[in-house]
């Protein structure tokens, strides 16, 4: 068994055991993570493997969601399909709309393709609230999960296991897809569409196929969300959802199959964990995205790959100080940045500004953060993030130096080895 297989088996077992350790709130977060992971993986098929950057993938997610909710409400509320099979309606809804949108958008490539997908998504988003019969207007549509196959689907845990089964199945199918002839041609589409045509392939047909497959699995993700929430609203078509699947996919890494899955589940988890603590979650998400794009364009998965490569080059013992230094730098910079952002956010908030101007003494009242009161006028307050950021930068420089030393040592070792070879021969 390869390490990857052991890791995957471990993850699956952990996911199976998860609900017994978690509160219902956290199980709900886990459901959201699974759905985001599937959505990102479906998106990755189009953007990472086929090289077609779609800026409007919420449309297919949303269509899947609405197809599912109508399937649940069909036949007087008994449902078109038994509850466990409901996401199939999402697949059909997402896939059918994907075929329609994909037919037009894949006639162009690159920027034009991206613009068409964006326009289609905006069109749907603008149109949806007006089509009350289909999308339920501002209020949306709700439905009820019906018991099926001996399960009531009344508890969060049952929904979790249903979601897990679907996500596991879909991710497996998406992985197997990459090993099929169409999956290999998807890569060819990214690499050189022009050449494919001269090898005799209908590239428009291929692009439509890839688009439909991606939209179909996005639709399953949307369907799973509806099965979990028992409601759907036109907000599902919001550009924010299209944007976050792009960000999640790139943060995870667009070069490896597991990258977007990792990125989406981590970012969803952070979103869940942090959104109660801060109002600036979107700012952190954006900052994280910029940092990842600047310093590790291959994303988190690329980072792990890089560390693995260094380990085999320099050995684990030599690499540990580097990893510790880099981790320390990351923590300090993250802490300093978070402190500065939170402080500024509170300082610049309307409430605080009103409070300060009402204060007759003309002084700045203290701000409560991390269980302490900080005076925004005191230099000591701003010294905290400054110190943290400086220390973090210092550690980053040290980490970089350590890495450079490792490379130098490797080179001198190689030079020594080369010098000793002629000596042996003589």
């Amino acid at each position, binding site marked *: 068994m390869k390490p990857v297989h052991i890791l995957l088996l471990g993850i699956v077992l952990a996911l199976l055991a998860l609900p017994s350790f978690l509160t219902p709130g956290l199980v709900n977060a886990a459901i959201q993570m699974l759905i985001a992971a599937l959505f990102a993986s479906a998106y990755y098929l189009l953007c990472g493997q086929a090289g077609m950057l779609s800026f409007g993938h919420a449309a297919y997610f949303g269509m899947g969601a609405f197809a599912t909710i109508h399937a649940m409400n069909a036949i007087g509320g008994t449902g078109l399909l038994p509850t466990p099979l409901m996401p199939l309606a999402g697949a059909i809804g997402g896939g059918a709309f994907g075929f329609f949108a994909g037919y037009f958008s894949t006639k162009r490539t690159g920027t034009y393709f991206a613009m068409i997908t964006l326009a289609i998504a905006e069109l749907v988003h603008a149109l949806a609230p007006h089509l009350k019969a289909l999308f339920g207007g501002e209020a949306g549509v709700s439905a009820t999960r019906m018991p099926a196959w001996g399960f009531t689907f009344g508890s969060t845990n049952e929904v979790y296991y249903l979601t897990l089964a679907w996500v596991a199945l879909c991710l497996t199918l998406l992985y197997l897809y990459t090993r*099929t002839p169409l999956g*290999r041609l998807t*890569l060819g589409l990214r*690499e050189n569409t022009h050449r*494919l045509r*001269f*090898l005799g392939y209908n590239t428009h047909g291929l692009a439509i196929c890839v688009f439909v497959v991606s939209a179909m699995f996005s639709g399953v993700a949307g369907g799973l969300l509806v099965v979990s929430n028992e409601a759907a609203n036109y907000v599902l078509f919001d550009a924010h959802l299209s944007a976050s699947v792009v960000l999640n996919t790139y943060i995870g890494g667009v070069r490896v199959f597991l990258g977007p899955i990792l990125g989406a589940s981590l970012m969803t988890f952070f979103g869940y964990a942090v959104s109660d603590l801060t109002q600036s979650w979107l700012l952190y998400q954006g900052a994280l995205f910029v940092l990842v794009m600047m310093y590790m364009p291959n994303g988190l998965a690329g980072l792990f790959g890089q560390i693995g490569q260094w380990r085999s080059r320099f050995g684990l013992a030599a690499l540990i100080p580097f990893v510790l230094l880099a981790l320390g730098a990351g923590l300090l910079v993250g802490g300093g940045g978070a402190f500065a952002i939170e402080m500024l956010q509170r300082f610049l908030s309307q409430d605080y500004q009103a409070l300060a101007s009402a204060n007759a003494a003309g002084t700045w009242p203290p701000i409560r953060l991390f269980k302490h009161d900080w005076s925004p006028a005191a230099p000591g307050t701003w010294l905290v993030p400054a110190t943290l950021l400086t220390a973090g930068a210092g550690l980053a420089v040290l980490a970089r130096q350590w890495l450079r030393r490792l490379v130098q040592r490797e080179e001198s070792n190689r030079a020594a080895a080369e010098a000793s070879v002629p000596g042996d021969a003589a």
Partner: protein
Amino acid sequence: MSDAILTLRGLKKSFGDIEIIRGVDLDLLGGERHALIGPNGAGKSTIFHLISGNIAPTAGEIMFAGKQIGGAQPQAINHLGISRSFQITNIFPRLTTFENLRLAVMRAHGLQYNFWRLVDNNRRVREQTERLLEMVRLQARADSIAGEMSYSEQRSLEIAMTLASDPRVILLDEPMAGMSRDETEYTSNLIREVTKGRALMIVEHDMDVVFSLSERVSVLVYGQVIATGTPEEIRRNASVKEAYLGEEVAA
């Protein structure tokens, strides 16, 4: 040698006001090796683009096996049995050499829309891919990223990809550009070998290759064919000497 498999009649191509191809008549006979030579800018690559469907002719016709193909889609022309290579290497740079070739091989097996079978399990595709790799001496590079190979290796890959669909007509656009003497000789023999029973049209600047490989030669100057004949006839042709070979000798 048999009747013409590919016929160009009164072929013209203009880009805006500029006429690049000014009425070309040309016959490619079934099973012959036919070289297209001419000075830079004569329109040799443009003729290939017209035949292979990369661009549509302004006027005139291109007949392949009795069918008019001028202006058809590249994939449709490829399906009829015309396969081409490119002057500027045109491969899948970030895929392995094996993968590059497998994509080319798969087409003839009708696997374009197949998503229910694993491609690694397809023995016929794998064996054919391996055979082609061996043929162009790239079997040691099977797992290399194609874009990271040397230029001449990429040229060899390009030739193998062109052969993969088992075409009836092969168009090779400067296949030996950038190759060493030894590689040129090997490739020249390879081309002679693999084009048996097929028609070949080749654009090449290496005159030794042209005269040793081809059975007939056409000379293209300023978008017109000024002579067609056996290598001997072309060598002796006065206007060819003046327009093309003479310049080369003088230079």
